[in-house]
């Protein structure tokens, strides 16, 4: 079922021997650099070697490698065997000695092998995986190997060569000829119109040429550019409609250089100085403000959820409403809604046709601002798509609605990580040029940016805009806590932001004007209780609430008693409770519930007959048509809610009561949507709630895969099909291909995940005998070369040029 390691090829001897000769450190480094090897828990070194040279594993390493490593590896795949450091340096256009360090790094991670001194062998799995390295076609000998001698002789004669000799001779002669730059140049001078362009394209862009009406139709026509090339071996037909340029010709036409440019080091990150303290201050403010805005949005949607569009997502009108509430631009608001959705705090409920906060929001609400921010950032980091898509304009110029279903981008997570990493590397007090961030990020992991419609610069621009919205950066520079996040240090980020955030306070200052002021971030318990009993008048670094009869009534409605409220206030107000406030609470307590409104029969019950008579005769209540039923009871034909509301409006402070006469405790019920786990199935987002320790990536992934099941297919068939195709896998899961693969691997084994696990695995591998007869595993050619620099850091985590 697991395609990446169920069919390991028989390990080629030299690779196994290299493993057997390596030290514990080398093995450990290999397993850390290529975690897929460790995750599958190989039983011995032979198994490890087999996996190490499998196309899947080697391909995965290649995908994650930086541009220099990719170019070295691809060049080795392209060069005719046996390659040497010199031939490699020639093909890349650098000095041989420059390559010793990167080659040593690649050797240690099992991608390159030295044989007999200078001879280089590339991981055979990679050679299989990259069968068209450097956009080059197969070698001439391979393309023409099956052709008749007379056919080869015909081509040779066209090139001005002798047509005599056996096939081997002919192939050698032909290969030599099309590898000859001067010969090719002189040939091209006599080429018919269009041929030079065609050759140029096949050499530099892509070696294949497609002729819809068949290669054979033009093969005999010297005046036709394709026919002309075919007759001279510059293109060779491979099937009915395809012709390919032989590798040697393309290399020659490229002037012997496989790539237009090659650099061992990433582009320089351009930076300018910026005040870090000011950056931090601004970013902290943005970060905390964002948290407040998300809270405000969720609170608003708790009572009035946002209506969904027919096609899904939150429409422009609802976005406008939210934008007004949050005093932000609509575009920014759309992103904010999308972010809240990404974090699982709000979710669409298709059955009810609205979007509302989820149960996860209730948990989030109980966290401190800094923790809430970390939740938002974590969700953003792991989001399968770009949140800034929401609110942006589509091809028709319409704003893309937030919370709509979207095809996730498999590379978004990695792109985000790269962008904020590179920005952070500018260092404290430095802002980085955006273009140069994109260039460095692209160099570091080219595969992540390929196959995107947008350029790396555009993508980085979006990502850093999103990051700025979160306060990870400001003024083009990372904030100190943004840098901690980039470094994976969530706790550090919390501390740094916490240091800039208003202190968490558990006390308020109560004043005679009936305000409560928390001169910092109110502790969650304090905040929720005050939100219940008072109205927020000003928020920001401090929060000011105002008590009123109406706001305190909410507290009584929620079941608080006067003594409880007094106690709460006294406990949290070291400066004392002003007499006026204390009086207000007691007075309300005395009067609250004097008039009671029944739900079932819609009656007014009142122990005070005068009050009841007053109620019944009150002109303002005339529409209720209250009739006195008994000295202490009056009834109405209107629904109880209306009755209660009208009485309250008229100032009677009615209380609702249950059937058995006790006070019914009502708190305004907040509307909730199904949680994001259920929603994940619809959107393909498998991201867990980060605080859920029990989340199992494997089961979540499998759960998603199960959902894709077509009727009639069994799970296993479908799973096997998806797992066999890494691209399909990444598409359906919305995870970067590599992550998806790792997750699948973890499913099959007791994967070692900790450092101790890894060390134990290394020890086990070294002590488990390899079942074969060879005596001395250490052959001289496999020993580490003396001129290598063993301490060179692995290339997949580059340092910049000094």
């Amino acid at each position, binding site marked *: 079922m697991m395609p990446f390691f169920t069919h390991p090829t028989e390990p080629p001897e030299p690779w196994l021997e290299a493993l057997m000769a390596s030290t514990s450190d080398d093995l450990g480094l290999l397993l850390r650099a290529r975690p897929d090897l460790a995750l599958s828990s190989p039983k011995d070194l032979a198994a490890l070697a087999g996996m190490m040279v499998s196309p899947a594993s080697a391909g995965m390493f290649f995908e994650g490698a930086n541009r220099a490593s990719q170019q070295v590896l691809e060049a080795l795949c392209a060069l005719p065997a046996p390659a040497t450091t010199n031939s490699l340096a020639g093909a890349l256009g650098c000095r041989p000695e420059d390559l010793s360090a990167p080659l040593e790094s690649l050797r240690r991670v099992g991608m390159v092998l030295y044989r007999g001194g200078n001879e280089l062998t590339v991981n055979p799995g990679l050679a299989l995986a990259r069968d068209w390295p450097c956009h080059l076609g197969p070698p001439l000998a391979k393309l023409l190997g099956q052709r008749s001698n007379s056919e080869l002789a015909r081509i040779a004669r066209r090139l001005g060569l002798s047509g005599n000799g056996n096939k081997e001779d002919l192939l050698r002669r032909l290969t030599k000829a099309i590898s000859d730059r001067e010969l090719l140049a002189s040939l091209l001078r006599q080429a018919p119109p269009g041929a030079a362009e065609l050759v140029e394209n096949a050499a530099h862009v892509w070696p294949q040429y497609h002729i819809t009406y068949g290669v054979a139709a033009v093969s005999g026509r010297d005046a036709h550019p394709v026919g002309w090339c075919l007759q001279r071996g510059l293109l060779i037909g491979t099937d009915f409609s395809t012709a390919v340029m032989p590798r040697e010709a393309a290399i020659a036409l490229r002037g012997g250089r496989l790539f237009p440019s090659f650099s061992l080091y990433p582009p320089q990150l351009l930076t300018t100085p910026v005040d870090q303290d000011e950056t931090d201050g601004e970013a*902290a403010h943005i970060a905390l403000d964002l948290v407040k805005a998300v809270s405000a949005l969720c609170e608003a949607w708790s009572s009035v959820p946002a209506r969904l569009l027919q096609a899904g997502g939150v429409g422009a009108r609802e976005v406008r409403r939210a934008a007004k509430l949050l005093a932000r631009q609509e575009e920014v608001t759309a992103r904010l809604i999308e972010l809240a959705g990404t974090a699982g705090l709000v979710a669409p409920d298709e059955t009810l046709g609205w979007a509302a906060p989820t149960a996860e929001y209730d948990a989030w609400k109980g966290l401190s601002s800094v923790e809430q921010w970390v939740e938002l950032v974590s969700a953003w980091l792991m989001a399968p798509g770009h949140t800034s898509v929401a609110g942006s304009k589509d091809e028709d110029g319409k704003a893309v609605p937030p919370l709509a279903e979207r095809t996730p981008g498999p590379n978004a997570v990695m792109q985000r990580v790269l962008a904020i990493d590179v920005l952070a590397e500018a260092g404290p007090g430095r802002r980085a040029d955006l273009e140069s961030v994109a260039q460095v990020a692209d160099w570091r992991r080219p595969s992540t940016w390929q196959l995107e419609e947008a350029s790396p610069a555009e993508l980085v621009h979006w990502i850093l805009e999103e990051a700025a919205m979160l306060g990870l950066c400001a003024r083009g520079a990372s904030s100190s806590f943004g840098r901690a996040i980039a470094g994976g240090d969530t706790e550090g980020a919390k501390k740094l932001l916490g240091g800039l*955030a208003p202190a968490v306070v558990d006390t308020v200052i109560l*004043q005679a004007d009936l305000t409560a002021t928390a001169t910092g971030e109110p502790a969650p318990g304090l905040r929720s209780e005050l939100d219940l009993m008072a109205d927020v008048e000003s928020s*920001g670094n401090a929060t000011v609430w105002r008590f009123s009869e109406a706001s305190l009534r909410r507290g009584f409605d929620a079941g608080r008693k006067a003594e409880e409220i007094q106690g709460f206030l006294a406990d949290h107000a070291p400066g004392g409770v*002003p007499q006026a406030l204390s009086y*207000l609470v007691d007075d309300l307590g005395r009067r609250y519930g004097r008039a009671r409104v029944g739900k079932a029969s819609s009656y007014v019950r009142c122990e005070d007959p005068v009050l009841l008579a007053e109620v019944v005769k009150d002109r303002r209540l005339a529409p209720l048509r209250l009739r006195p039923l008994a000295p202490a009871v009056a009834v109405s034909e209107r629904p109880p809610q209306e009755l209660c509301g009208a009485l309250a409006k008229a100032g009677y402070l009615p209380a609702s009561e249950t059937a058995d006469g006790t006070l019914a405790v009502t708190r305004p019920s907040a509307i909730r949507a199904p949680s994001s786990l259920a929603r994940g199935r619809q959107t393909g987002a498998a991201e867990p709630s980060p605080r859920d320790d029990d989340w199992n990536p494997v089961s979540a992934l499998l759960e998603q895969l199960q959902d894709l099941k077509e009727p009639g297919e069994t799970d296993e068939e479908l799973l096997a099909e998806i797992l066999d195709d890494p691209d399909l896998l990444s598409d359906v899961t919305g995870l970067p291909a590599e992550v998806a693969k790792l997750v699948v691997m973890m499913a099959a084994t007791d994967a070692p995940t900790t450092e101790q696990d890894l060390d134990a695995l290394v020890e086990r591998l070294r002590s488990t005998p390899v079942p074969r007869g060879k005596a001395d595993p250490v052959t001289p050619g496999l020993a580490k070369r003396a001129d290598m620099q063993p301490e060179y850091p692995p290339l997949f985590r580059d340092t910049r040029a000094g």
Partner: protein
Amino acid sequence: MNDGPLIVQSDQTLLLETAHPEAERCRSDIAPFAELERSPEHVHTYRVTPLALWNARAAGHDAEQVVDALLRWSRYPVPQALLINVAETMARYGRLVLEVHPVHGLVMRTTDRAVLEEVVRAKAVAPLLGPRIDPETVSVPGSERGRLKQALLKVGWPAEDRAGYVDGASYPIVVQGPEAFSLRTYQKEAVEAFGAAGSGVVVLPCGAGKTLVGIGAMAAAGAHALVLVTNTVAARQWRAELLGRTHLRDAEVGEYSGEKKDVRPVTIATYQILTARRGGLYPHMELLSAEDWGLIIYDEVHLLPAPVFRMTADIQSRRRLGLTATLVREDGREGDVFSLIGPKRYDAPWRDIEAQGWIAPALCTEVRVTLTDEERMSYALAENEERYRVGATARSKLAVVERLCAEAVERGEPVLVIGQYLDQLDEIGRRLSAPVLTGKTTTRERERLFGAFRRGEIPVLVVSKVANFSVDLPEASVAVQVSGTFGSRQEEAQRLGRVLRPKKDGRQARFFAVVSRDTNDQEFASRRQRFLAEQGYSYRITDAEAFAWPV
């Protein structure tokens, strides 16, 4: 981040913790550019408004100082948007300057051509301008000086007025008096701040001696002066002060009111007479330009009626002093005060002055009266528009008022009973055998009663609305409010002003509001409570049954 006393909120408010050791230094730094909105006991709220920033700019502060003060005193990171807003707003003041050109007379000049191009195209501004002189200068008809400033403020480019003032007809005024009269420190500061600028507003609480600031300014100007006041009683009061505190003789101080029309070197006129209309015209408005006034004083500038604003726009070359307890106008025309009278020149929070010992601290108590069943019924049955009256004039209040008065009299403290409804006031007067002063009372009778009250011959005086404005009742150490108009903030300021005058023996003033429980009288009382508490006064609520004289 530091441990400062200030918290800057993103909604442009500043919270100042008064208990912080640095609070006073911080306050003096932020007061120039932020308006004190609330000053209850622990946390004072200031608001940074465009007008406040321009006031600061007019007083010579720049954005850097403002930003600096915010950063220096703020406990937490200051919202970036606010800092940007401060800089941008302040930069708008003074881009346009009104000044006198040697050839063209009054002109508006700019250092920023784009701004000039913008405003000359503004619909509200264009008609007020004369011909263009050069790309940076445009001439302004002298008569439009005030209206232009108003219009420019509205389009967000307030002009700095450097066109100067005429000195007016010289007339030395010397401060002297039977008592060793001298200005208090803050009064001196206020006079100096105004003198340096030539026009503007001095904000001082009731009882802090605004009249004396006015007299000080008159002495400094040494010219013919016109004093505009709210009513005749206030006019007499000013007159008495002028005669008592300066060497001016009776013949030198004229009264221009409904009863007399004397124009003298120092003339006191009422807003009422100025705004009296005849055939759609304001015949008495001419008084403003009748004399070569060197100084015009607007008492209670927050009550300045709209027609007077219009006339004031025409006399922008005269020195103008506005006096008030509050810049807040119920009609929201604070901008007109800024444009036409001038920016704020001096401001001191009530509590600060009180701390200096000039105003007796007042104890405020709300006494809640439970209505009888009958009264409750009539309240419930009342039409909407009658509801307040029914609640506010409930007879149950009378017993409480009686008790309060009796207690005060027993303690030898003169009592002022204030109310809105004449029937209620008459009833109280009958029950307490106290004289009732209403709008129908003649001026002479009014003065007689005030005099008797001042001398202690009348222990209790019942007054209606007329007593609300600018009457000096130094010995009223207890005020009882039985009903009032819809809790407007101004009114509250006035009512409290009644009892906040300095007491000779340092007695504490007491302010009682008698309120009917469970009626909208109580709702209005809660607004009053908020206002008073925001001004920093202790405020207690008590039930009439449980009432005990506050100590």
